[in-house]
């Protein structure tokens, strides 16, 4: 395949950044999107230029590190895929592909396509855990049966990979889908339920502090989420938040 790329280049946080055009030829349709960028980078290095910086690690859709905004979509075209799982067979020979970083004020650009998603870590630190020590002196794992449906729903919420595509997809740059996934997972399990109320207040407070926008229920996050995290989580979190706010007053 032959391709034209328009790639966001920004040398550092203080640089203004711009789109730069590149042409690529002979790309295998079986290669992944990141392998296509590898080819570009190899060529840039061979010309003595700096390669495009981008985040990636597992390349199998689970670590949540890859994060490219491709042709106006986080993780590009294709249903429920991360950038690393996207394959070039999703494009046509001769296509022009625009590649940008996640855009959100809470995710400042570090370089080229690499952004800082530390805000997500800080939200988890604000309460995305069960306050139990790891001493091993806990009760037997089977002492509290959990209905399969609850366990499955908790699992579904827990599959969020923390990639931030939901924020990048949202016109308000809201992090509600990400936050509600963690809040829901723990609220659905008896072990997490105990702290549910305080947790939701703390995590939402941190989310606001990080500068994420408000949720106006457009659903773009769910549509772009590579893990299919459901909007129901946001609804559950909203209910929980209201109930918690009232009881906190």
């Amino acid at each position, binding site marked *: 395949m032959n391709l034209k790329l328009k790639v966001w280049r920004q040398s550092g946080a203080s640089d203004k950044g711009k789109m730069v055009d590149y042409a690529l030829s002979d790309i295998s349709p079986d290669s992944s999107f990141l*392998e296509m960028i590898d080819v570009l980078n190899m060529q840039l290095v061979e010309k003595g230029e700096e390669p495009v910086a981008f985040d990636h690690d597992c390349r199998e859709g689970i670590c949540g590190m890859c994060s490219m905004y491709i042709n106006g979509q986080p993780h590009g075209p294709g249903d429920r895929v991360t950038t690393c799982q996207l394959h070039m067979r999703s494009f046509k020979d001769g296509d022009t592909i625009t590649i940008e970083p996640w855009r959100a004020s809470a995710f400042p650009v570090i370089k080229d396509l690499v952004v800082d998603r530390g805000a997500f870590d800080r939200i988890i630190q604000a309460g995305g855990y069960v306050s139990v020590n790891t001493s091993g002196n806990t009760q037997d794992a089977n002492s509290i049966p*959990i209905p399969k449906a609850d366990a499955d729903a908790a699992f579904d919420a827990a599959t969020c990979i923390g990639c931030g595509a939901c924020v990048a997809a949202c016109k308000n740059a809201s992090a509600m889908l990400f936050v509600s996934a963690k809040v829901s997972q723990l609220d659905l399990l008896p072990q997490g339920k105990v702290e549910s109320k305080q947790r939701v207040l703390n995590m939402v407070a941190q989310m606001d502090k990080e500068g994420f926008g408000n949720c106006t229920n457009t659903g773009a996050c769910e549509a772009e989420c590579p893990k299919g995290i459901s909007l129901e989580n946001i609804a559950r979190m909203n209910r929980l938040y209201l109930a918690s706010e009232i009881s906190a007053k």
Partner: protein
Amino acid sequence: MSVLNSNIPEGKMSEKWENYKEHIDLVNPANKRGIDVIVVGTGLAGASASATLGELGYNVKTFCFQDSPRRAHSIAAQGGINAAKNYQGDGDSVFRLFYDTVKGGDYRSREANVHRLAEVSGNIIDQCVAQGVPFAREYGGLLDNRSFGGVLVSRTFYAAGQTGQQLLLGAYSALSRQIAIGKVQMYNRHEMLDVVVVDGKARGIIARNLITGEIERHSAHAVVLASGGYGNVFFLSTNAMGSNVTASWKAYKRGAFFANPCYTQIHPTCIPRSGDHQSKLTLMSESLRNDGRIWVPLHKEDAEKVRNGSLKPTDIPEDRRDYYLERRYPAFGNLVPRDVASRAAKERCDAGFGVNKTGEAVYLDFASAIQRYGKVQARLHGIAESNTEEVTRLGKEVVKEKYGNLFEMYEKIVDQNPYETPMMIYPAVHYTMGGTWVDYNLMTTVNGLYAIGEANFSDHGANRLGASALMQGLADGYFVLPYTIGDYLAKEIRTGKIPTDLPEFVAAEKEVVDRINKFLNNKGSKPVDYFHKKLGKVMWDKVGMARNEQGLKEAIAEIQAIKEEFWSDVFVPGSDKGLNQELEKAGRVADFIELGELFAKDALNRKESCGGHFREEYQTAEGEALRDDKNFAYVAAWQYKGEGVEPEMHKEQLEFVEVELKTRSYK
């Protein structure tokens, strides 16, 4: 007398760990506040260790090269985690898990460590459930189990095909809790580039801030390496792109012996390579072998037709298929251990029966599982078994419930629907059993330097059983290291803060800076990846699934040549200020090249076949691995002797008290 002292406690095997815990020195809580510990890596081992050490009251500094601790590659583990809970009542016990692990490791692991691992395994599950890890459950609300390769009981706990993710997020949440209260200071996007040893004790590390490029000195009373395995020495592996050996390699150069580097696990069920652009390989969980049947065409003509696209696998009738694992190993069938399954696949493909364009693939077929499950469901729903359409639909549903995400992943990569046509799989490098040598305390040969999880060598011998890596990572981090490190740190309560202006820190930092400058000023003609691929090819061809003396000798010479070429001709663009991913890679590949040489030497030294290490000269007439217990029942621990000097091999003789040394048989 060997210089290696494994410090195995006295007493009966089943009492060692309890006795040990009762007799170690403890550090009182007030003193813990004055003690610093560095942890490198945030996978299951590193994250769990950091969280637990923080809870205990130590000041922990934790480092990872990713943008968040949640991204470490444990996240990608799919299948499950073993624990001797015997919830299924199928005869499991601590002893059985211990026995299976020692046997599965082909009698090359240290009994005492493995027994301890089996003992704490049950606790891990309790702990994870308490943390809110959403394991799979049965309709009654209790935890579900599945079985895994190499064992006869069902002891594997799982969370769909994302067990590693769920366990890591559990450990990450515990870690986050400690970060929030300031007991753990987290250094994301930092790479450890050296260990600092002062008066024979590990006292800190030199790290590079990958964003600013700054070189930093960090001191501590003990350093814990939880930096994972080195499978990327093969370039193509199922490891994450960033997984590297650098932390372990720097430790090796500072005096930590490196044990059994040649023990590599080649995982039998990975998605085959599709072409030269390939940057990494993707694993399909071994749990698929519970229900998938592995086969290749019985006749070469059929295999050829499949390869050139003129015959579809679904059109090959039963009597023209060779279910070679079921044929060769009737007792374990498709569930033989990983090393056995991998070699059998290679054997069939080398003999010309492979499928896929490359001829390097075998089938993993779910058609019979779909029918079997479908019939059970049909009975439950009162539908006639003769209604094949319904049976197939119901069967697919069950298979989807069990492996849906794996099937989806397969389809995304290969563009074929595994519900309709058999999957294609081929072995790939997946895990390294070898690693930094540690004693019973998980301490390396450098005082105060520990290695946990995949980074150490001790528990899996020459082959790791499925679902045991997660178990070991968490066992080390939550339950073992927090005790053993206390025994050491008890002697450090009067030491006081370690200053970072000691000459050892200055010297180590200078070495790091010099190396970075060397890369940047080299101005060669080839990018780092060129060398990495070249190294990987030598490793795979000559130090891979089957090895022989001649090939290994050639590999050593070729790797030495690659090293020379690398240092004279590598080109690293950009500067040391700020993010420079090529510079990061250069450092890692430089270390991989050196490791590759040691790896081949270790494989050459081990004149036997055991577990993941298969020497073609040492096999039975039927092609099974031939171990040599008389001469090789030892751990080969290599000591660095300086640049250009041959490393020295030390032996830790393995003693088997509880488990009788036997030929492994899965027939």
